[in-house]
Protein backbone atom coordinates (compact mmCIF):
# COMPACT_ATOMS: atom_id res chain seq x y z
CA UNK A 1 0.00 0.00 0.00
CA UNK A 2 2.68 2.44 1.06
CA UNK A 3 4.83 1.51 -1.92
CA UNK A 4 1.97 2.06 -4.36
CA UNK A 5 1.04 5.37 -2.76
CA UNK A 6 4.62 6.57 -2.94
CA UNK A 7 4.77 5.74 -6.66
CA UNK A 8 1.33 7.12 -7.41
CA UNK A 9 1.48 10.36 -5.41
CA UNK A 10 3.90 12.27 -7.68
CA UNK A 11 2.00 10.95 -10.69
CA UNK A 12 -1.31 12.26 -9.32
CA UNK A 13 0.28 15.63 -8.54
CA UNK A 14 1.68 15.79 -12.08
CA UNK A 15 -1.69 14.88 -13.62
CA UNK A 16 -3.49 17.55 -11.57
CA UNK A 17 -0.84 20.10 -12.55
CA UNK A 18 -1.11 19.16 -16.23
CA UNK A 19 -4.91 19.47 -16.07
CA UNK A 20 -4.74 22.97 -14.59
CA UNK A 21 -2.16 24.05 -17.19
CA UNK A 22 -4.32 22.48 -19.91
CA UNK A 23 -7.42 24.41 -18.80
CA UNK A 24 -5.52 27.70 -18.67
CA UNK A 25 -3.88 27.18 -22.06
CA UNK A 26 -7.06 26.00 -23.78
CA UNK A 27 -9.01 28.93 -22.32
CA UNK A 28 -6.47 31.42 -23.61
CA UNK A 29 -6.33 29.65 -26.98
CA UNK A 30 -10.12 29.64 -27.36
CA UNK A 31 -10.29 33.34 -26.65
CA UNK A 32 -7.31 34.05 -28.90
CA UNK A 33 -9.45 32.80 -31.78
CA UNK A 34 -12.29 35.11 -30.79
CA UNK A 35 -9.89 38.01 -30.21
CA UNK A 36 -8.38 37.40 -33.64
CA UNK A 37 -11.77 37.60 -35.34
CA UNK A 38 -12.78 40.67 -33.35
CA UNK A 39 -9.51 42.58 -33.79
CA UNK A 40 -9.28 41.67 -37.48
CA UNK A 41 -12.85 42.94 -37.80
CA UNK A 42 -11.95 46.27 -36.23
CA UNK A 43 -8.80 46.60 -38.35
CA UNK A 44 -10.90 46.02 -41.48
CA UNK A 45 -13.75 48.29 -40.35
CA UNK A 46 -16.16 45.46 -39.49
CA UNK A 47 -17.78 44.47 -36.21
CA UNK A 48 -16.67 40.84 -35.99
CA UNK A 49 -18.68 38.02 -34.40
CA UNK A 50 -21.27 39.44 -31.98
CA UNK A 51 -24.25 37.04 -32.19
CA UNK A 52 -23.41 34.21 -29.78
CA UNK A 53 -23.71 35.44 -26.22
CA UNK A 54 -23.18 39.05 -25.15
CA UNK A 55 -20.47 40.68 -27.30
CA UNK A 56 -19.85 37.29 -28.93
CA UNK A 57 -18.09 35.76 -25.91
CA UNK A 58 -19.54 32.30 -26.48
CA UNK A 59 -18.36 32.19 -30.11
CA UNK A 60 -15.42 29.75 -29.50
CA UNK A 61 -17.81 27.17 -28.03
CA UNK A 62 -20.24 27.60 -30.89
CA UNK A 63 -17.33 27.04 -33.30
CA UNK A 64 -16.28 23.90 -31.46
CA UNK A 65 -19.82 22.50 -31.47
CA UNK A 66 -20.05 23.17 -35.18
CA UNK A 67 -16.79 21.28 -35.80
CA UNK A 68 -18.01 18.33 -33.71
CA UNK A 69 -21.33 18.00 -35.52
CA UNK A 70 -20.01 18.41 -39.06
CA UNK A 71 -19.75 15.46 -41.40
CA UNK A 72 -16.29 13.89 -41.33
CA UNK A 73 -15.18 13.29 -44.92
CA UNK A 74 -12.21 11.02 -45.64
CA UNK A 75 -10.80 11.08 -49.18
CA UNK A 76 -11.08 7.68 -50.85
CA UNK A 77 -7.50 7.43 -52.15
CA UNK A 78 -5.79 8.74 -49.02
CA UNK A 79 -3.22 6.76 -47.02
CA UNK A 80 -5.62 6.07 -44.16
CA UNK A 81 -3.34 5.44 -41.18
CA UNK A 82 -1.11 8.43 -41.79
CA UNK A 83 -4.13 10.56 -42.67
CA UNK A 84 -5.54 9.90 -39.19
CA UNK A 85 -2.14 10.10 -37.48
CA UNK A 86 -1.25 13.56 -38.80
CA UNK A 87 -3.73 15.78 -36.88
CA UNK A 88 -3.10 13.78 -33.69
CA UNK A 89 0.64 14.36 -34.07
CA UNK A 90 0.16 18.06 -34.75
CA UNK A 91 -1.98 18.71 -31.68
CA UNK A 92 0.00 16.40 -29.35
CA UNK A 93 3.32 18.00 -30.21
CA UNK A 94 1.76 21.42 -29.75
CA UNK A 95 0.47 20.53 -26.28
CA UNK A 96 3.60 18.83 -24.94
CA UNK A 97 5.56 22.03 -24.11
CA UNK A 98 2.77 22.92 -21.65
CA UNK A 99 4.55 21.08 -18.84
CA UNK A 100 7.48 23.50 -18.76
CA UNK A 101 5.62 26.83 -18.99
CA UNK A 102 6.63 28.86 -15.92
CA UNK A 103 3.28 30.42 -15.01
CA UNK A 104 4.59 32.20 -11.93
CA UNK A 105 6.99 32.15 -8.98
CA UNK A 106 6.84 29.43 -6.34
CA UNK A 107 4.39 29.98 -3.46
CA UNK A 108 5.66 29.26 0.04
CA UNK A 109 3.05 27.10 1.78
CA UNK A 110 2.66 25.30 5.09
CA UNK A 111 4.84 22.31 5.84
CA UNK A 112 3.18 19.26 4.28
CA UNK A 113 5.12 16.67 6.30
CA UNK A 114 1.98 15.80 8.36
CA UNK A 115 0.79 13.72 5.38
CA UNK A 116 0.98 9.94 6.01
CA UNK A 117 3.90 7.77 4.75
CA UNK A 118 6.16 10.83 4.45
CA UNK A 119 4.50 11.86 1.20
CA UNK A 120 4.87 15.56 1.95
CA UNK A 121 8.45 15.24 3.19
CA UNK A 122 10.29 18.51 2.65
CA UNK A 123 7.57 20.07 0.50
CA UNK A 124 7.22 23.69 1.52
CA UNK A 125 6.74 25.30 -1.85
CA UNK A 126 4.12 25.15 -4.55
CA UNK A 127 5.87 25.84 -7.84
CA UNK A 128 3.60 27.24 -10.56
CA UNK A 129 5.13 24.96 -13.17
CA UNK A 130 4.40 21.29 -13.81
CA UNK A 131 7.98 20.14 -14.36
CA UNK A 132 11.28 21.90 -13.88
CA UNK A 133 13.29 20.18 -16.60
CA UNK A 134 17.01 20.86 -16.74
CA UNK A 135 16.87 21.26 -20.54
CA UNK A 136 13.51 23.00 -20.91
CA UNK A 137 14.56 25.25 -23.81
CA UNK A 138 15.86 22.28 -25.81
CA UNK A 139 12.74 20.31 -24.89
CA UNK A 140 10.43 22.99 -26.27
CA UNK A 141 12.50 23.38 -29.46
CA UNK A 142 12.67 19.61 -29.96
CA UNK A 143 9.00 18.90 -29.41
CA UNK A 144 7.84 21.74 -31.63
CA UNK A 145 10.23 20.54 -34.35
CA UNK A 146 8.52 17.13 -34.24
CA UNK A 147 5.23 18.97 -34.88
CA UNK A 148 6.38 19.53 -38.48
CA UNK A 149 5.49 15.91 -39.22
CA UNK A 150 1.83 16.57 -38.50
CA UNK A 151 1.69 19.06 -41.33
CA UNK A 152 4.04 17.28 -43.74
CA UNK A 153 2.30 13.92 -43.35
CA UNK A 154 -1.15 15.50 -43.62
CA UNK A 155 -0.13 17.01 -46.95
CA UNK A 156 1.29 13.75 -48.25
CA UNK A 157 -1.44 11.37 -47.11
CA UNK A 158 -4.38 13.42 -48.46
CA UNK A 159 -3.45 12.43 -52.02
CA UNK A 160 -4.15 15.93 -53.30
CA UNK A 161 -1.67 18.10 -55.15
CA UNK A 162 -2.57 21.26 -53.23
CA UNK A 163 -2.17 19.44 -49.92
CA UNK A 164 1.19 18.01 -51.01
CA UNK A 165 2.46 21.42 -52.09
CA UNK A 166 1.31 22.92 -48.79
CA UNK A 167 2.93 20.14 -46.78
CA UNK A 168 6.23 20.43 -48.65
CA UNK A 169 6.28 24.19 -48.30
CA UNK A 170 5.58 24.08 -44.61
CA UNK A 171 8.22 21.48 -43.85
CA UNK A 172 10.82 23.39 -45.88
CA UNK A 173 9.86 26.61 -44.12
CA UNK A 174 9.84 25.14 -40.65
CA UNK A 175 13.22 23.42 -40.90
CA UNK A 176 14.76 26.62 -42.31
CA UNK A 177 13.43 28.93 -39.62
CA UNK A 178 14.04 26.47 -36.79
CA UNK A 179 17.78 27.05 -37.26
CA UNK A 180 17.46 30.81 -36.98
CA UNK A 181 15.20 30.41 -33.96
CA UNK A 182 17.59 28.05 -32.20
CA UNK A 183 20.53 30.36 -32.92
CA UNK A 184 18.64 33.39 -31.59
CA UNK A 185 17.98 31.61 -28.29
CA UNK A 186 21.68 30.74 -27.76
CA UNK A 187 22.51 34.34 -26.77
CA UNK A 188 19.95 34.29 -23.96
CA UNK A 189 21.10 30.88 -22.78
CA UNK A 190 24.69 32.12 -22.64
CA UNK A 191 23.76 35.19 -20.62
CA UNK A 192 21.59 33.20 -18.21
CA UNK A 193 23.94 30.20 -18.00
CA UNK A 194 21.03 27.74 -17.82
CA UNK A 195 18.51 26.03 -20.09
CA UNK A 196 15.81 25.93 -17.42
CA UNK A 197 13.01 28.45 -17.93
CA UNK A 198 12.54 29.53 -14.30
CA UNK A 199 16.31 29.75 -14.01
CA UNK A 200 16.40 32.08 -17.02
CA UNK A 201 13.73 34.30 -15.44
CA UNK A 202 15.66 34.43 -12.15
CA UNK A 203 18.88 35.24 -14.02
CA UNK A 204 17.09 38.12 -15.77
CA UNK A 205 15.84 39.54 -12.49
CA UNK A 206 19.45 39.68 -11.29
CA UNK A 207 20.95 41.11 -14.47
CA UNK A 208 21.57 44.90 -14.69
CA UNK A 209 19.19 45.29 -17.65
CA UNK A 210 16.30 43.37 -15.99
CA UNK A 211 14.91 42.11 -19.29
CA UNK A 212 17.09 40.36 -21.88
CA UNK A 213 15.37 42.23 -24.70
CA UNK A 214 17.84 45.10 -24.12
CA UNK A 215 21.20 43.26 -24.36
CA UNK A 216 19.75 40.71 -26.81
CA UNK A 217 17.84 43.02 -29.10
CA UNK A 218 19.10 41.37 -32.31
CA UNK A 219 18.28 37.98 -30.85
CA UNK A 220 14.77 39.13 -29.99
CA UNK A 221 14.19 40.45 -33.52
CA UNK A 222 15.37 37.19 -35.09
CA UNK A 223 13.32 35.18 -32.61
CA UNK A 224 10.19 37.18 -33.34
CA UNK A 225 10.48 36.79 -37.13
CA UNK A 226 11.37 33.10 -36.87
CA UNK A 227 8.46 32.57 -34.49
CA UNK A 228 6.04 33.95 -37.07
CA UNK A 229 7.49 31.62 -39.69
CA UNK A 230 7.51 28.62 -37.34
CA UNK A 231 3.82 28.97 -36.63
CA UNK A 232 2.96 29.51 -40.31
CA UNK A 233 1.35 32.87 -39.67
CA UNK A 234 1.05 35.96 -41.86
CA UNK A 235 3.32 37.18 -43.46
CA UNK A 236 4.78 33.67 -43.67
CA UNK A 237 1.57 31.65 -44.16
CA UNK A 238 2.73 30.17 -47.46
CA UNK A 239 1.63 26.61 -46.55
CA UNK A 240 -2.00 27.70 -46.64
CA UNK A 241 -1.84 30.49 -49.19
CA UNK A 242 -5.49 30.28 -50.21
CA UNK A 243 -5.02 32.07 -53.54
CA UNK A 244 -2.57 29.40 -54.73
CA UNK A 245 -3.23 26.27 -52.70
CA UNK A 246 -6.94 26.30 -51.73
CA UNK A 247 -6.27 25.68 -48.03
CA UNK A 248 -2.80 24.06 -48.18
CA UNK A 249 -2.08 20.94 -46.17
CA UNK A 250 -5.53 20.73 -44.58
CA UNK A 251 -7.56 21.01 -47.78
CA UNK A 252 -8.88 17.47 -47.38
CA UNK A 253 -9.51 17.64 -43.65
CA UNK A 254 -12.95 18.32 -42.28
CA UNK A 255 -14.85 18.42 -38.99
CA UNK A 256 -12.92 17.60 -35.82
CA UNK A 257 -9.72 16.63 -37.64
CA UNK A 258 -9.53 20.12 -39.11
CA UNK A 259 -10.31 21.52 -35.66
CA UNK A 260 -7.28 19.65 -34.28
CA UNK A 261 -4.96 21.33 -36.80
CA UNK A 262 -6.57 24.64 -36.01
CA UNK A 263 -6.07 24.12 -32.28
CA UNK A 264 -2.50 22.97 -32.84
CA UNK A 265 -1.69 26.17 -34.71
CA UNK A 266 -3.07 28.39 -31.97
CA UNK A 267 -1.40 26.39 -29.18
CA UNK A 268 1.87 26.75 -31.09
CA UNK A 269 1.29 30.50 -31.18
CA UNK A 270 0.79 30.41 -27.43
CA UNK A 271 4.00 28.38 -27.00
CA UNK A 272 6.20 30.79 -28.95
CA UNK A 273 4.57 33.68 -27.11
CA UNK A 274 5.46 32.05 -23.79
CA UNK A 275 9.01 31.40 -25.03
CA UNK A 276 9.39 35.00 -26.19
CA UNK A 277 8.06 36.28 -22.87
CA UNK A 278 10.28 34.03 -20.79
CA UNK A 279 13.47 34.44 -22.80
CA UNK A 280 13.34 38.14 -23.61
CA UNK A 281 10.69 39.90 -21.50
CA UNK A 282 11.47 38.48 -18.07
CA UNK A 283 8.57 36.02 -17.84
CA UNK A 284 6.55 36.62 -14.67
CA UNK A 285 9.20 38.97 -13.29
CA UNK A 286 8.31 42.65 -12.91
CA UNK A 287 10.93 45.07 -11.56
CA UNK A 288 9.86 46.53 -8.20
CA UNK A 289 7.09 44.04 -7.53
CA UNK A 290 9.07 42.35 -4.74
CA UNK A 291 8.97 45.66 -2.81
CA UNK A 292 5.16 45.74 -2.88
CA UNK A 293 4.51 42.13 -1.82
CA UNK A 294 6.52 39.57 0.13
CA UNK A 295 8.26 37.14 -2.19
CA UNK A 296 6.57 33.73 -1.99
CA UNK A 297 3.22 35.02 -0.76
CA UNK A 298 0.01 34.26 -2.64
CA UNK A 299 -0.70 37.87 -3.79
CA UNK A 300 2.85 38.09 -5.20
CA UNK A 301 2.29 34.87 -7.16
CA UNK A 302 -1.13 35.99 -8.41
CA UNK A 303 0.11 39.38 -9.59
CA UNK A 304 3.16 37.75 -11.21
CA UNK A 305 0.90 35.27 -12.98
CA UNK A 306 -1.27 38.11 -14.28
CA UNK A 307 1.82 39.98 -15.48
CA UNK A 308 2.97 36.84 -17.28
CA UNK A 309 -0.42 36.44 -18.95
CA UNK A 310 -0.51 40.13 -19.97
CA UNK A 311 2.90 39.77 -21.63
CA UNK A 312 1.86 36.58 -23.44
CA UNK A 313 -1.38 38.20 -24.59
CA UNK A 314 0.63 41.18 -25.83
CA UNK A 315 2.57 38.76 -28.04
CA UNK A 316 -0.66 37.16 -29.25
CA UNK A 317 -2.08 40.61 -30.03
CA UNK A 318 1.03 41.37 -32.08
CA UNK A 319 0.33 38.24 -34.13
CA UNK A 320 -3.20 39.41 -34.90
CA UNK A 321 -2.13 42.98 -35.56
CA UNK A 322 0.49 41.86 -38.07
CA UNK A 323 -2.04 39.55 -39.73
CA UNK A 324 -4.28 42.55 -40.28
CA UNK A 325 -1.44 44.69 -41.63
CA UNK A 326 1.08 42.82 -43.77
CA UNK A 327 0.77 41.05 -47.14
CA UNK A 328 2.23 37.59 -47.79
CA UNK A 329 5.81 36.80 -48.85
CA UNK A 330 6.63 34.93 -52.04
CA UNK A 331 8.16 31.50 -51.40
CA UNK A 332 11.64 32.21 -52.82
CA UNK A 333 11.72 35.50 -50.90
CA UNK A 334 10.89 33.58 -47.75
CA UNK A 335 13.69 31.05 -48.24
CA UNK A 336 16.27 33.69 -49.20
CA UNK A 337 15.28 35.82 -46.23
CA UNK A 338 15.57 32.92 -43.81
CA UNK A 339 18.88 31.48 -44.99
CA UNK A 340 20.73 34.53 -46.26
CA UNK A 341 19.64 37.18 -43.78
CA UNK A 342 18.07 35.80 -40.62
CA UNK A 343 20.49 32.92 -39.95
CA UNK A 344 23.68 34.99 -40.47
CA UNK A 345 22.20 37.73 -38.28
CA UNK A 346 21.50 35.21 -35.51
CA UNK A 347 25.04 33.82 -35.80
CA UNK A 348 26.55 37.33 -35.60
CA UNK A 349 24.47 37.87 -32.47
CA UNK A 350 25.86 34.64 -31.00
CA UNK A 351 29.44 35.76 -31.76
CA UNK A 352 28.89 39.20 -30.21
CA UNK A 353 27.36 37.63 -27.12
CA UNK A 354 30.30 35.22 -26.80
CA UNK A 355 32.75 38.13 -26.87
CA UNK A 356 30.77 40.20 -24.34
CA UNK A 357 30.25 37.27 -21.97
CA UNK A 358 33.95 36.39 -22.21
CA UNK A 359 35.07 39.89 -21.25
CA UNK A 360 32.45 40.18 -18.52
CA UNK A 361 33.61 36.95 -16.92
CA UNK A 362 37.35 37.59 -17.20
Amino acid sequence: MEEILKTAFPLIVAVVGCSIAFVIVMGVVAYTVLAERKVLGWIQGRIGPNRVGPWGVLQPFADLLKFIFKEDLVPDKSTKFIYFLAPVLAVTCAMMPMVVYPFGPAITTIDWSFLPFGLGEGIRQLPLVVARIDVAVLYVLGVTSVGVYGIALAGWSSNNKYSLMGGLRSSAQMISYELAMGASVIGVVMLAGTLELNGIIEAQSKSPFRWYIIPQFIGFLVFLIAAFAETNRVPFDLPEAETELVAGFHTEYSALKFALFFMGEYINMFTVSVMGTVLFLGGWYMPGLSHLFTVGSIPYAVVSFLIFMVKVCGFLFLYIWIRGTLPRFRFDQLMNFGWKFLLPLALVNVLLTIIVVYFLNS
Partner: protein
Amino acid sequence: MATTALFFLFAGLAIACAISTVYHKNPLYSAVSLIGVFVSLSCIYITLAAPFIAAVQVLVYAGAIMVLVVFVIMLLNLDDDKPLQRLNYLYAVGAGLGLILLVQTFFIFYAVVKAPNKPQEESGVGKTLSIGSAMYTEYLLPVEIVGVLLLMAIIGGVILARRLSQPELELVVDNELEKRHENDQDDFRIAM
Protein backbone atom coordinates in the same frame (compact mmCIF):
# COMPACT_ATOMS: atom_id res chain seq x y z
CA MET B 1 9.24 -0.20 -10.00
CA ALA B 2 7.78 2.59 -12.08
CA THR B 3 11.12 3.02 -13.84
CA THR B 4 11.20 -0.66 -14.78
CA ALA B 5 7.65 -0.51 -16.12
CA LEU B 6 8.49 2.59 -18.16
CA PHE B 7 11.66 0.95 -19.46
CA PHE B 8 9.77 -2.09 -20.70
CA LEU B 9 7.04 0.11 -22.21
CA PHE B 10 9.46 2.25 -24.20
CA ALA B 11 11.84 -0.61 -25.04
CA GLY B 12 8.91 -2.61 -26.40
CA LEU B 13 7.72 0.40 -28.37
CA ALA B 14 11.22 0.93 -29.79
CA ILE B 15 11.51 -2.72 -30.86
CA ALA B 16 8.01 -2.73 -32.38
CA CYS B 17 8.78 0.45 -34.33
CA ALA B 18 12.13 -0.96 -35.45
CA ILE B 19 10.49 -4.11 -36.79
CA SER B 20 7.86 -2.04 -38.55
CA THR B 21 10.64 0.12 -40.07
CA VAL B 22 12.18 -2.94 -41.67
CA TYR B 23 9.00 -4.71 -42.72
CA HIS B 24 6.94 -1.96 -44.32
CA LYS B 25 6.96 -1.84 -48.12
CA ASN B 26 5.92 1.80 -48.20
CA PRO B 27 9.02 3.96 -47.50
CA LEU B 28 7.00 6.65 -45.74
CA TYR B 29 5.62 4.15 -43.21
CA SER B 30 9.19 3.02 -42.57
CA ALA B 31 10.29 6.62 -42.01
CA VAL B 32 7.43 7.27 -39.57
CA SER B 33 8.30 4.07 -37.69
CA LEU B 34 11.93 5.18 -37.50
CA ILE B 35 10.77 8.44 -35.90
CA GLY B 36 8.91 6.27 -33.38
CA VAL B 37 12.17 4.43 -32.62
CA PHE B 38 14.01 7.71 -31.99
CA VAL B 39 11.28 9.10 -29.76
CA SER B 40 11.07 5.91 -27.66
CA LEU B 41 14.87 5.86 -27.33
CA SER B 42 14.81 9.42 -26.07
CA CYS B 43 12.15 8.42 -23.50
CA ILE B 44 14.52 5.67 -22.31
CA TYR B 45 17.31 8.26 -21.97
CA ILE B 46 15.02 10.32 -19.74
CA THR B 47 14.40 7.34 -17.45
CA LEU B 48 18.19 6.93 -17.31
CA ALA B 49 18.49 10.52 -15.99
CA ALA B 50 20.13 11.89 -19.15
CA PRO B 51 17.69 14.65 -20.17
CA PHE B 52 20.21 16.52 -22.31
CA ILE B 53 20.92 13.50 -24.51
CA ALA B 54 17.17 12.81 -24.74
CA ALA B 55 16.43 16.37 -25.88
CA VAL B 56 19.26 16.34 -28.41
CA GLN B 57 18.12 12.95 -29.71
CA VAL B 58 14.66 14.34 -30.46
CA LEU B 59 15.97 17.67 -31.74
CA VAL B 60 18.61 16.26 -34.10
CA TYR B 61 17.32 12.86 -35.21
CA ALA B 62 13.55 13.15 -35.03
CA GLY B 63 13.39 16.90 -35.65
CA ALA B 64 16.01 17.50 -38.32
CA ILE B 65 17.37 14.37 -40.03
CA MET B 66 14.09 12.49 -40.36
CA VAL B 67 12.31 15.61 -41.63
CA LEU B 68 14.77 15.63 -44.52
CA VAL B 69 14.20 11.93 -45.15
CA VAL B 70 10.42 12.38 -45.14
CA PHE B 71 10.85 15.41 -47.38
CA VAL B 72 12.82 13.43 -49.97
CA ILE B 73 10.33 10.54 -49.90
CA MET B 74 7.46 12.96 -50.40
CA LEU B 75 9.23 14.71 -53.28
CA LEU B 76 10.20 11.51 -55.09
CA ASN B 77 6.84 9.85 -54.48
CA LEU B 78 8.30 6.36 -54.95
CA ASP B 79 6.28 3.61 -56.50
CA ASP B 80 5.50 1.26 -53.62
CA ASP B 81 3.98 -1.56 -55.70
CA LYS B 82 7.26 -2.64 -57.24
CA PRO B 83 9.23 -5.07 -55.03
CA LEU B 84 12.95 -4.40 -54.95
CA GLN B 85 14.56 -7.61 -56.21
CA ARG B 86 18.06 -6.26 -56.70
CA LEU B 87 18.74 -5.85 -52.97
CA ASN B 88 18.49 -9.55 -52.12
CA TYR B 89 22.19 -9.95 -51.34
CA LEU B 90 21.69 -7.47 -48.48
CA TYR B 91 19.84 -10.17 -46.50
CA ALA B 92 23.13 -12.05 -46.05
CA VAL B 93 24.97 -8.88 -45.00
CA GLY B 94 22.15 -8.04 -42.60
CA ALA B 95 22.23 -11.51 -41.07
CA GLY B 96 26.01 -11.25 -40.52
CA LEU B 97 25.74 -7.83 -38.91
CA GLY B 98 22.84 -8.98 -36.75
CA LEU B 99 24.88 -11.94 -35.53
CA ILE B 100 27.76 -9.64 -34.56
CA LEU B 101 25.30 -7.38 -32.70
CA LEU B 102 23.85 -10.36 -30.85
CA VAL B 103 27.32 -11.52 -29.75
CA GLN B 104 28.10 -7.98 -28.64
CA THR B 105 24.89 -7.82 -26.60
CA PHE B 106 25.68 -11.09 -24.85
CA PHE B 107 29.19 -9.85 -24.15
CA ILE B 108 27.75 -6.70 -22.54
CA PHE B 109 25.38 -8.80 -20.42
CA TYR B 110 28.33 -10.97 -19.38
CA ALA B 111 30.47 -7.94 -18.53
CA VAL B 112 27.67 -6.33 -16.50
CA VAL B 113 27.03 -9.50 -14.53
CA LYS B 114 30.76 -10.04 -13.87
CA ALA B 115 31.44 -6.40 -12.93
CA PRO B 116 31.84 -5.61 -9.21
CA ASN B 117 28.55 -4.22 -7.96
CA LYS B 118 29.53 -0.91 -6.42
CA PRO B 119 27.05 1.96 -5.94
CA GLN B 120 27.49 4.85 -8.33
CA GLU B 121 28.22 8.09 -6.53
CA GLU B 122 25.85 10.96 -7.32
CA SER B 123 27.31 12.82 -10.26
CA GLY B 124 26.10 15.28 -12.83
CA VAL B 125 26.54 12.85 -15.73
CA GLY B 126 23.89 13.59 -18.34
CA LYS B 127 23.38 17.14 -17.10
CA THR B 128 24.02 19.95 -19.56
CA LEU B 129 26.81 21.49 -17.49
CA SER B 130 28.88 18.31 -17.16
CA ILE B 131 28.48 17.45 -20.85
CA GLY B 132 29.50 20.96 -21.90
CA SER B 133 32.55 21.15 -19.65
CA ALA B 134 33.66 17.65 -20.66
CA MET B 135 33.30 18.51 -24.34
CA TYR B 136 35.42 21.65 -24.14
CA THR B 137 38.14 20.42 -21.78
CA GLU B 138 38.73 16.69 -21.73
CA TYR B 139 37.43 15.84 -25.21
CA LEU B 140 38.35 19.04 -27.02
CA LEU B 141 40.31 17.33 -29.80
CA PRO B 142 37.54 14.89 -30.87
CA VAL B 143 35.01 17.74 -30.80
CA GLU B 144 37.26 19.84 -33.02
CA ILE B 145 37.78 16.93 -35.43
CA VAL B 146 34.03 16.35 -35.67
CA GLY B 147 33.56 20.08 -36.20
CA VAL B 148 36.00 20.09 -39.11
CA LEU B 149 34.30 17.00 -40.54
CA LEU B 150 30.91 18.73 -40.41
CA LEU B 151 32.38 21.83 -42.03
CA MET B 152 33.73 19.67 -44.86
CA ALA B 153 30.31 18.10 -45.28
CA ILE B 154 28.69 21.55 -45.45
CA ILE B 155 31.16 22.75 -48.08
CA GLY B 156 30.67 19.53 -50.04
CA GLY B 157 26.92 20.00 -49.91
CA VAL B 158 27.16 23.59 -51.14
CA ILE B 159 29.46 22.58 -54.00
CA LEU B 160 27.15 19.75 -55.07
CA ALA B 161 24.05 21.91 -54.92
CA ARG B 162 25.33 25.23 -56.22
CA ARG B 163 24.02 26.73 -59.43
CA LEU B 164 26.50 26.36 -62.27
CA SER B 165 27.72 29.50 -64.02
CA GLN B 166 26.46 29.97 -67.57
CA PRO B 167 29.43 28.55 -69.59
CA GLU B 168 29.70 25.52 -67.28
CA LEU B 169 25.99 24.94 -67.52
CA GLU B 170 26.11 24.98 -71.32
CA LEU B 171 28.97 22.48 -71.25
CA VAL B 172 26.97 20.11 -69.02
CA VAL B 173 23.86 20.46 -71.18
CA ASP B 174 25.86 19.81 -74.39
CA ASN B 175 27.43 16.67 -72.90
CA GLU B 176 24.06 15.42 -71.77
CA LEU B 177 22.47 16.06 -75.18
CA GLU B 178 25.33 14.29 -76.96
CA LYS B 179 24.95 11.28 -74.66
CA ARG B 180 21.22 11.12 -75.26
CA HIS B 181 21.77 11.40 -79.00
CA GLU B 182 24.14 8.40 -78.92
CA ASN B 183 21.67 6.45 -76.81
CA ASP B 184 18.90 7.23 -79.27
CA GLN B 185 21.05 6.01 -82.13
CA ASP B 186 21.80 2.80 -80.19
CA ASP B 187 18.12 2.27 -79.58
CA PHE B 188 17.44 2.90 -83.24
CA ARG B 189 20.05 0.31 -84.23
CA ILE B 190 18.61 -2.26 -81.82
CA ALA B 191 15.15 -1.60 -83.13
CA MET B 192 16.37 -2.20 -86.65
